[in-house]
């Protein structure tokens, strides 16, 4: 009797299998917007299932802000509260710039796991795979910004630019970070291992964020270093963000941030897409 039942079960499974295979019609390939949103949904679902990955946008900002405010505050500006007014915009820039590197690491993981190959054999507008996850990264950066500014406010940060100034500053950071992320997607596509990728990212980000005007006024630096700090994209962004938050921003400062962002995107986004399509 068991043989009979097993046979019937097997037949039922086969029937379902055949139906599910036969019933599929071929829909039109998705629009660029639809596929981008699908990849964004994937990134959101990943956050839901692996909430640990939010560590970098929640705990990092808190640690960084507390650490640098109380470490340097007394020495550099005489009081922590006074230093906070100078430091917070800069440290926000630095934190968000540093967490952009996880974009490259996520992409690198996809490549090593094989899902990358599946995406590349789909009839989709390929950049949507990257833009979708970058859009969710922008949400992550906003979260880091809100957390840091809220904590700063509790510690005595009082932006003279008001709410509009703060929102404008965050907008500048998001535009800049989105553009900066393309550098990491290029690295993520070239570098073989996650470890090597981390090392490269740190080697670029550490000097870039520290040798800037985030912590100190560049006028206190030797002139050769000052000239580097002045052209450092992180300084350019920090200056504009500081200005926006304290209500002293100039159009020129904002335009410089936008120019730097456009240049980074124009160079690294096409390289990313080319590498994504032609990856060995």
């Amino acid at each position: 009797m068991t043989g009979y039942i097993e046979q019937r079960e097997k037949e039922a499974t086969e029937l379902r299998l055949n139906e599910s295979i036969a019933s599929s019609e071929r829909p039109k390939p998705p629009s660029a917007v639809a596929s981008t949103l699908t990849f964004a949904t994937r990134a959101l679902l990943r956050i839901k299932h692996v909430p640990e990955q939010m560590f970098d946008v929640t705990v990092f900002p808190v640690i960084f802000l507390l650490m640098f405010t109380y470490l340097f505050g007394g020495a550099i500006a005489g009081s922590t509260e006074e230093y906070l007014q100078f430091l917070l915009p800069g440290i926000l820039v630095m934190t968000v710039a540093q967490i952009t590197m996880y974009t490259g690491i996520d992409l690198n993981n996809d490549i090593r796991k094989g899902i990358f190959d599946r995406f590349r054999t789909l009839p989709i507008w390929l950049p949507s795979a990257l833009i979708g996850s970058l859009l969710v990264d922008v949400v992550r950066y906003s979260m880091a910004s809100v957390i840091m500014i809220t904590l700063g406010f509790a510690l005595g940060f009082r932006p003279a630019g008001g709410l509009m100034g703060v929102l404008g500053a965050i907008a500048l950071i998001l535009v800049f970070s989105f553009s900066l992320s393309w550098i990491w997607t290029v690295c993520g596509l070239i570098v073989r291992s996650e470890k090597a990728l981390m090392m490269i990212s740190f080697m670029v980000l550490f000097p870039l964020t520290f040798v800037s005007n985030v912590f100190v006024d560049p006028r206190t630096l030797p002139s050769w270093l000052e000239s580097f700090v002045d052209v450092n994209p992180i300084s350019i962004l920090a200056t504009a963000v500081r200005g926006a938050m304290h209500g002293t921003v100039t159009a020129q400062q904002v335009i410089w941030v936008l120019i730097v962002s456009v240049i980074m995107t124009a160079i690294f986004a096409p390289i990313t897409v080319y590498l994504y399509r032609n990856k060995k």
Partner: protein
Amino acid sequence: MVNASYQADATDWAIEAKGLVKVFGKHRAVDGVDLTVRKGTVYGFLGPNGAGKTTTIRVLATLLKPDGGSAEIFGHDLSKEGDEIRSRISLTGQYASIDEDLTGMENLVMMGRLMGYGRAAAKIRAAELLKAFGLQDAAKRQVKNYSGGMRRRIDIAASIVVTPELLFLDEPTAGLDPRSRNQVWDIIRALVGSGTTVLLTTQYLEEADQLADRIAVINQGKIIAEGTSSELKASVGTGTLSLQLAKAEERSRAAEILEDKLSVAVHLMPDSTSLTAQINDSFLVAEALSELAKNQIAVSDFSFGRPSLDEVFLTLTGHAATEEPQPEEGGS
């Protein structure tokens, strides 16, 4: 009309490749592969690790640009009509090509959306596939918690959210237990039944024998033999004598005796006690066996008949398909 099956016109081919070459540095991973695969059939790539099977598939699936040669997939040029080809094919790679952090359901809905389904249609399709693949109970579990067999099934399900015209399967049953392997085979047969062309790679000779209409034996980037499983076996010889000895240390002496009696080459199999020889004359076989008995060499198992694909591979390449010893089935 006699030979109609061999005089198919161009529209009958799913894949037509000529002289495909792919070079990595100095290593010619694919070295002049010619290939024609008829629509609606299963084509098997058989070969050991590193033979160039995966690279060939990746070239045909538009993932790698060939360094030489040309190919058409359903009449579309591989180098020029990538989008056209991508809308007809699907690839299930060697490693799970799905997001392991997402649930089975979420993965299939995502694939449905990326194939162009609306939100609701994608959900219905995902549920239907999960049920057909016996995964409805695991729908809400993250794929990283799936067993090997379930992972393979969800992987294949993701490849057929929209039933592709051509499906590439890279070692679909590697590392699966026999039950899961049979399930995957059933799925492949059902797909072919609905008209999908399947190109699969395998190192398992039995798998190629079971599923593939035609088989290409690949070694060092080259196709060294091609045909149906019976043709391949026939090309090696119509009869094969397989012997397993009770004692490994007697094998070289047994080989000498057999070569002397049968006057054909005797191959030593990867395990230490088996040997095979291509021979057609059953009387000679009987004589050879009694000669072994006279010399006090005990035979624990023997068979005489058409060669297995293992033996085909051994004869064609001079080395075995797999490194591990293949336990022989008794008296087959």
